């Protein structure tokens, strides 16, 4: 008898390094055939020209969220960022979030990056 298991649990472990905020995300379950993992990043109000950089803790880039056409004072919105399989280790991925503006870089606050989670998407 077969049963395919799915679970929705995920959790984050927060840390604050000097130039970024690390969030360790646990995949809700192992990836099945043809599935891909994505990060869903909810960005709050950030200064015009600021960007959110995502990378693994080993420095592998995961993408840059660069809000376009968002009026000052508005939430930047939720962004979907594909997650390479090789960024996942032991069912987890540690994501370093940095807010960059010009030459300066720092950890975004919880208001600036409100949440981040891993989603799994099937394919055909």
């Amino acid at each position: 008898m077969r049963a395919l298991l799915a679970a929705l649990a995920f959790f984050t472990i927060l840390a604050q390094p000097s130039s970024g905020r690390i969030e360790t995300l646990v995949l809700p379950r192992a990836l099945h055939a043809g599935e891909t993992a994505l990060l869903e990043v909810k960005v709050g109000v950030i200064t015009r020209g600021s960007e959110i950089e995502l990378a693994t803790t080993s420095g592998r880039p995961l993408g840059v969220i660069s809000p376009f056409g968002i009026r000052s004072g508005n939430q930047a919105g939720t962004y979907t960022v594909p997650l390479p399989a090789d960024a996942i280790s032991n069912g987890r991925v540690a994501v370093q979030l940095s807010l960059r503006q010009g030459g300066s870089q720092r950890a975004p606050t919880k208001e600036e990056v409100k949440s981040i989670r891993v989603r799994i998407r099937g394919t055909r």
Partner: protein
Amino acid sequence: MRVTKSGVTRRDFIKTGIAAVGAATLRFGDFAAQNAAKYTRYNVTSEGGKKALASYAKGVEAMLKLPADHPQNWFRNAFIHLMDCPHGNWWFYVWHRGYLGYFEQTIRNLSGDDKFAIPYWDWTTLPQIPDSMFEGVLTPQSKAFEPYTSNLAVFTSFIQPALAAYWKTLDAGQLAQLKTRGYTSLDSVWNDVTGFDPSQSNGISGNISCANTCWSRYLTRDNPKLDKNTAYDVSPFVVYSGLLPTDFYNPETYLSFNSSKTPSHNTAAGRQSFSVLEGLPHNKVHNYIGGVGPLDPGPYGNMTNFLSPVDPIFFLHHSNMDRLWDVWTRKQKRLNLPYLPSGQDLDTLSKEPFLFYVNGKGEYVGTSHAGEYLSTEKFEYDYEPGFGEKVVSGPAAPKARRALPPARGVVKGSAASVTVPTAAVKTHLGAEIAPSLIAEVTLPHPSHSGAREFDVVVGAPPNVKQVSADSPYYAGTIAFFGHMMKMTGPLHDATFAVPLPKTPEAFHGLAAANATVNIRVLPRGLGQKAPVLKAVTIRTR
């Protein structure tokens, strides 16, 4: 090879939509019943693209020379975008298709090239501004722009009186849409031009939409390349990920080709969810060309804001975005999947009025609807193939699926050996998009006290007892979740599908006609007991 058929034909569109939408909603007459497109949008680097650029330059020059009160004036054309463009919602692609389509007609008429079609910039294969886009009027830093954009005062005196006169001609429907956007007067529009924030009674340099000629584009001929961050956002991995969703729209954005569904295409920014392609390559290319990233705190170049069509690269960038929508549409068709929403969703999407377009004759289009632009046939064009076409053709997976029936392995303890044709393994190793060999591993639920996570390894030497994710033998991790302590009754077997690694080290004996694939399941954690497998089967997809 050319794409000989555009993304959505009249017949296909009707097949998808007619059952769900009343005929009055959509102008089916706008979908010409033809298979071959009249115009082809070429890659800017191809011979066809270079020829198109020459006509493009003629057209831009002609638009620059038109008076400010002419609807086809270059800057007036950019104000259509500032006043009406949707971003972060599901009208993003379709609105820009209409905007580009009419603009293409304008260039065709003003350049005298009756075959003109907007070339596209395929940033995935060319992560730098094409050199030719630094020539003459194809850069906003050209001397031809200086009479209009040398500074804010010059720009204001040139364009503002004409816009004020235009504002007085707007009808109630247009004013209502602008109000939704936050524009209650021309002054409020102008605040976005100057970067003035009324809530702070202050100007914000990063919000200035009017870029002076000298800083209108951050990238230069000597420094044309996208930086590493932008190059990543346009990389094959990201673009393929953006093409993979199978729903035109899904409330879960990670499953959606389009961004979020909003009450109107003018709904103010704030809480949208961005699809992969709009949120990453589209946004990042816009911003980086204008200097977001290296510059702080602005002002930035044209491409970072809603007057971005002032930079001629805008239309090549959006031609590529539109091409990717076309690629996605044809992929859906190949898979016999819907490429439009259905039912009420299609009705809502299609009925959205677009009120600000100007056609190739310089006439205001008046009221048109999103449904008219869901097909490329409205403007009779197709694309010279570019990056992403593999998702349409998808040659590897179908061949493998036909060639290989499921191969059941011989199981012994926590290991299995499966015999598969070597050709299937080679196809798998050569697949560029996704693995084609999948192992179905069946094992019993672990006991309450045992290991609940197991690594699947392929072709690993016997002494390999643990692996990390970067091991060439690592295929994936099987994880049992849930409140197992609360489960009652007998524990069942579970089957997991695990794509095999695409590493040569995982496969051996590929010189023979058949190869034996050795699969083992290792418990996570030292001292844990390996499971006794029930079955292992390899399938293709």
